[in-house]
């Protein structure tokens, strides 16, 4: 038997709500970035909006996949069932993972600039490892944790240069997202790792939203 769901039954739906909230936060920041791109034509805004949008769509796929699992009462399914009747769901798992990692990669490349060729090879290798690897679950969370950590590290360094309080929120938020992916490594040991991981991840996204709010409210307080 292959266990497909690690969350306790009482947590069904709570995690969906948390992931939807996280996706909405990403989309709201992405929307503001896209509006600024529309206004200024600056490419960085577009790339940031795109990265956030891709990440959010990955979360939406994750929500859809979990919804199908939870509503179908297939908490414990056999491997053969995954390959046959649940093929659609496993396809959604792959897509959601690819989108989440690609979203993080786009944001990562914004802060760690490298030649286009290096970026293309990195994306290719990540995709290959996410599609062809035998331990795709661990690799997905490992790559996501590393990318989120380095994005948080960028803001942490930037905070030292500018001593800017918003950078504290941003670095902490990406560190929390990174920690949540590390916690997801261990969900086969206990469902509590999944629950704590989801909460930590949501805290990370709420901190991201706090940064957006502080920027928007600053603009409203200082109209000219």
């Amino acid at each position: 038997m292959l266990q497909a769901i690690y969350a306790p039954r009482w947590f069904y739906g709570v995690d969906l709500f948390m992931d939807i909230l996280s996706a909405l936060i990403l989309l709201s920041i992405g929307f503001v970035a896209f509006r600024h791109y529309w206004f200024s034509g600056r490419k960085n805004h577009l790339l940031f909006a795109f990265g956030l949008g891709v990440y959010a769509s990955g979360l939406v796929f994750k929500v859809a996949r979990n919804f199908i699992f939870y509503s179908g009462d297939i908490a414990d399914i056999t491997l053969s069932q995954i390959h046959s009747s649940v093929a659609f769901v496993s396809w959604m798992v792959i897509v959601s993972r690819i989108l989440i990692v690609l979203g993080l990669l786009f944001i990562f490349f914004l802060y760690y600039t490298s030649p286009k060729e290096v970026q293309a090879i990195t994306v290719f290798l990540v995709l290959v490892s996410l599609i062809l690897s035998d331990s795709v679950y661990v690799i997905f969370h490992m790559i996501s944790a590393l990318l989120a950590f380095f994005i948080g590290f960028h803001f942490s360094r930037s905070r030292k240069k500018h001593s800017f309080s918003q950078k504290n929120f941003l670095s902490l938020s990406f560190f929390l997202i990174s920690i949540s992916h590390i916690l997801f490594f261990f969900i086969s040991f206990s469902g509590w790792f999944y629950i704590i991981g989801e909460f930590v991840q949501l805290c990370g996204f709420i901190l991201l939203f706090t940064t957006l709010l502080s920027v928007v409210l600053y603009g409203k307080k200082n109209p000219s």
Partner: protein
Amino acid sequence: MARRTHLDIIFDMLLTIQQKGGLIKPTHLLYGANLSHQQLKKYSAELVDKGFVVVVEKDSDWFQITDKGHLYVKKIRDMREFEDAFDL
């Protein structure tokens, strides 16, 4: 220092006019926004075209910022705040 973009120059000009109380002489605008004479001609024409400033005839042609100009400055400020926060 990095070269100013088109948007930076427009912002500096509108901000200079704002800081002078909304009405400015071309020479003060030229020094305040750190422009060459050619740049002043080019960009002031653009500001007038877009309705961000109007020309007021006094002893010479003065520039007066409009509501649309004030709104544009606010938009650029919001964008810069977002850029600073997210390091874009």
